[in-house]
């Protein structure tokens, strides 16, 4: 398997070079669909003048600090806030006894206390909060709260959670899905097995959590924060405040990085409580440590697999057991598990599949929604299995995969038929046929290209190159019957359009897409996107690429309604239908070009408004054998990784990632490429360095020194080899969301390449150096 540095090019088919999508092949439009429009706030963000939540200020504001548990599992015997409350400058101290409404909250089930009352279930759980006139006073006061604990044995091994004492009244099993598809007795001629472990990736947003809560004269409160799901956050917060939802308003500030849920109610609710208590604005800026302790992580996962195939390498049966460590609270674990179980076989045709999945409670840090959750963990495992099968059958790994790939019309193990475009074979062929990168020259000038990097210890003689493949899939939009709806309003006045939609711009590019959609339909160049708050109708969470689809669809419909309102009187006047009129460059022209009028004239000082909703076709929950049409749409991607490994030190450098992705339709080429590159880089982080380590439930290094994100030197060359534009007929504009699937696929591809370079099994992510130390002289 291990390809020696001099023979590493053998895997490349000598096909003609595929042009990468670098240079513009044709004249790109300046605006509308297909334009590389840049975000309206790009300049302010680059120059550092964009106000994030941590930059907000209000007259007379107080500073909040949260007291967090130093233990992963303990009984609270007493909480004494007297000393803290008496400190000069302290204005309020709140604990579980001061929560006027619901004592607990949660996105799926309300199982998470606002403040721990009897038990703490994870390191960093909130116990009390303080508001004071100086951030240091608040922190010192929080530290002065005397909490007496009876330390309990933490449950940190998810395998032991089944038999352990319940950590929560709801029990330790959050969800179990036994997927049964086909004939259990089926067997293949070749069988491979494996046990895989995936670590705890953290979303590690560049801007840590921050917020400002301002009490209102009517007894309500406004919370300014970088929420990615403002309406849900508002409803959860209002329930805990004991207020009707319309008395709580969440105003979304700029989002400084989000690849998962952000600013979860765990930060917002204490903040709002303190503002209501003191009658003053209260601000909270989390430290990096608090950020790591407070937000949700990717589920650490344990996976056991057995693949059966026939002698030609066609899959016969897949058996798998998937165990997700949910941490102490349910959060989004149920959906992560559904994705993990449903995609446990990957984008391959599998006639028989038996997959058991569990999500269990432990005293480890809480897990939740992080881009590509569930799908990323299983991808690493099923692709490792495909490599094992290829090795056992003596087949080329890409060829083995090609023999099994899924296509439109095939049936997933959940019984759902793939109705959307699924050009998996085309994607794989594109990355396989792309020319391999050149080997570095053995000169001092290229020393920095060795694993270990510049000033590293890399030695050319110990470096082996490996090439690996992975295919990944994700679902788009919420699954299993989630009501995926978004509402948008488009307004046109004086030739300027404004979009009002509560879809949060997380950096995913939605607000730019919304501008482009309106430009395309209304032919107006100047389009603004209003900032988001909960006075607008809900648009749902900014996850699973939903907003490209549902909010984009709502914006499209609203813009079309405005267009009709604008053109109807003219059509009547010109004596032709509205379809025969077109709007370009602020001018309305008839099909034959004879009649024309500027938009401003046609508007005649009027204001046009329209509001529309987009609600994709409904889905259904997986039943008790894991069957059901649970997903609205699927997206696919193929990645070929090329790595250099120093087989003595086990240091890995990812040389190149070649990506081919199924995108439906390219709405904004520059933004699409950026999203894919970001996803691949996050995936490389998960493959090599990103793991929030714990010891007996305690987070060991909650900082960016201990938690190693990829730097610019770690980010590989990313070649976007092919973007397949096969429009998904049910999606607005036929476009598929693009951010998640590269994250899912990249780690598996890196692992596959390290396997090829070292001849080692590589069954754990991130790949530890000792697992990448090669077999000597091989």
């Amino acid at each position, binding site marked *: 398997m291990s390809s020696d540095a001099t023979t590493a090019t053998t895997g490349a088919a000598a096909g003609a070079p595929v042009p990468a999508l670098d240079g513009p092949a044709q004249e790109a439009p300046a605006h509308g669909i297909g334009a590389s429009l840049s975000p309206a706030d790009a300049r302010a963000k680059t120059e550092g003048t964009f106000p994030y939540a941590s930059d907000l200020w209000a007259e007379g504001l107080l500073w909040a600090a949260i007291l967090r548990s130093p233990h992963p599992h303990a009984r609270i015997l007493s909480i004494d806030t007297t000393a803290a409350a008496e400190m000069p400058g302290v204005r309020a101290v709140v604990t579980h006894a001061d929560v006027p409404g619901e004592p607990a909250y949660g996105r799926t089930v309300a199982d998470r206390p606002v403040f721990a009352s009897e038990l703490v279930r994870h390191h960093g759980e909130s116990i009390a909060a303080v508001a004071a006139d100086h951030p240091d006073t608040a922190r010192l006061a929080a530290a002065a709260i005397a909490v007496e604990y009876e330390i309990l044995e933490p449950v940190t091994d998810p395998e032991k959670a089944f038999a352990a004492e319940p950590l929560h009244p709801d029990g330790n099993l959050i969800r179990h899905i036994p997927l049964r598809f086909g004939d259990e007795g089926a067997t293949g001629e070749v069988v491979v097995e494996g046990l895989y472990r995936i670590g705890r990736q953290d979303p590690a947003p560049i801007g840590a959590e921050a917020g400002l809560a301002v009490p209102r004269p009517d007894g309500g409160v406004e919370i300014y924060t970088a929420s990615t799901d403002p309406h849900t956050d508002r409803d959860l917060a209002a329930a805990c405040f004991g207020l009707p939802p319309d008395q709580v308003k969440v105003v979304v500030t700029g989002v400084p990085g989000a690849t998962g849920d952000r600013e979860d109610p765990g930060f917002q609710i204490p903040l709002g409580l303190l503002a209501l208590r003191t009658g003053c604005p209260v601000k909270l800026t989390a430290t990096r440590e608090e950020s790591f302790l407070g937000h949700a992580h990717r589920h650490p996962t344990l996976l056991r697999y057995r693949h059966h195939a026939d002698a030609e390498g066609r899959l016969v049966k897949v058996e798998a057991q998937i165990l997700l460590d949910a941490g102490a609270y349910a959060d989004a674990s149920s959906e992560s598990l559904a994705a993990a179980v449903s995609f446990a076989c990957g984008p391959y045709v599998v006639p028989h599949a038996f997959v058991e999945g569990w999500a269990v409670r432990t005293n480890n840090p809480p897990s939740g929604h992080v881009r590509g959750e569930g799908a990323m963990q299983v991808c690493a495992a099923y692709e490792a299995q495909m490599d094992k099968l290829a090795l056992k059958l003596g087949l080329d790994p890409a060829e083995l995969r090609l023999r099994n790939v899924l296509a439109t019309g095939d049936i997933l193990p959940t019984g759902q038929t793939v109705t959307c475009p699924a050009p998996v074979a085309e994607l794989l062929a594109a990355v396989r046929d792309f020319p391999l990168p050149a080997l570095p020259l053995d000169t001092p000038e290229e020393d920095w290209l060795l694993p270990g990097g510049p000033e590293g210890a890399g030695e050319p003689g110990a470096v082996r190159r490996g090439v690996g493949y992975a295919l990944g899939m994700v679902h788009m939009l919420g699954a299993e019957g989630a009501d995926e709806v978004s509402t948008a309003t488009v307004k046109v006045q004086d030739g300027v359009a404004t979009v009002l939609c509560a879809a949060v711009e997380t950096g995913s590019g939605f607000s730019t897409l919304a501008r482009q959609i309106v430009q395309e339909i209304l032919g107006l160049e100047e389009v603004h996107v209003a900032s988001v708050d909960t006075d607008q109708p809900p648009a749902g969470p900014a996850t699973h690429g939903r907003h490209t689809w549902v909010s984009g669809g709502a914006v499209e419909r609203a813009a079309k309604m405005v267009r009709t309102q604008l053109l109807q009187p003219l059509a009547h006047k010109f004596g032709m239908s509205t379809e025969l009129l077109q709007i370009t460059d602020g001018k309305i022209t008839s099909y034959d070009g004879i009649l024309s009028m500027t938009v401003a004239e046609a508007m005649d000082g009027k204001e046009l408004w329209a509001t529309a909703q987009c609600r994709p076709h409904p889905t259904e929950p997986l039943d008790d054998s894991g069957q059901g049409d649970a997903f609205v749409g699927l997206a696919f991607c193929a990645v070929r990784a090329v790595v250099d490994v120093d087989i003595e030190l*086990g*240091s890995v450098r990812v040389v190149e990632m070649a990506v081919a992705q199924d995108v439906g339709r390219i709405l904004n080429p520059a933004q699409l490429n950026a999203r894919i590159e970001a996803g691949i880089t996050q995936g490389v982080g998960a493959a090599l360095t990103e793991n929030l380590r714990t010891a007996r439930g305690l987070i060991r290094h909650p900082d960016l020194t201990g938690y190693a994100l990829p730097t610019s030197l770690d980010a590989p060359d990313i070649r976007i080899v092919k973007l397949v534009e096969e429009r998904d007929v049910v999606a607005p504009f036929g476009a598929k969301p693009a951010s998640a699937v590269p994250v899912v696929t990249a780690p598996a591809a890196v692992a596959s390449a390290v396997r090829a370079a070292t001849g080692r099994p590589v069954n754990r992510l991130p790949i*530890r*150096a000792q697992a990448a*130390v090669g077999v000597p002289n091989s």
Partner: protein
Amino acid sequence: MTLPASLDEAVAALTAMPAAVPVAGGTDLMAAVNKGHLRPAGLVGLGRINEIRGWQYQDGHALLGAGLTHSRMGRPDFAALIPALAAAARAAGPPQIRNAGTLGGNIVTAAPTGDSLPVLAALEADLVVMGPLGTREIPISHLLAGRDLLAPGELVAFVRVPLLHAPQVFLKATGRTGPARATASVAVVLDPARRGVRCAVGAIAPMPLRPLEAEHWIASLVDWDAERGLAPEALTAFGEYVAAACIPDPPGDEQLPPAVLHLRRTVAALARRALGRALS
């Protein structure tokens, strides 16, 4: 915060306010302050003391100012003098850190992963310490081992390093390609005048470790009057000797855990590569 313009003023300021903490680049100190781990009663800023920002020559030694930044030490003119220290300085974190962080700060912080420390240990550098009672010199190993601590009012002013005019190598293994703390580092310096090879291993223990027996053994094999080359087997044996000295086998039948075994292999590979490069 006071900003003295000379070492004498700095010593006077520290003596007047013993609870104050001297700060140079602040890359470690201010991070601890920001995290709330440290709340110094006062700060004595060393940034304006020009006499510790450069170096001078003194009977075969270089007297390095404690305020030399890592960026400055990484430049070619410095690398021609003390190549291993320059290599360590270049490997010490991202440019922002190297621009601010100083040699003296790296020593006084004494973090196990301080990149300059194994180099200074291998060079057997001495620290010139100034205090209210005058100037004294202490070997760096004494400070790092806690045998001789800085007294109140004292600060590290200079570092005296021998100029050996021979190859020196610093190698560092990390967990990622971009700047990161060392998982293990090795400095190897040749001292042809004394026919010695000196080696120090950093990051695997609270202070740099010197495998003295391995040094003596390998120095006895080197042909100092000729090409100084060694057979690959000798280099490998040196690497393993160094690694076994720094990470000894546990007593009895116990096995080292896999992560520690990997660390030992890493030290062996680094030591072998470092000596090989120094002798090539």
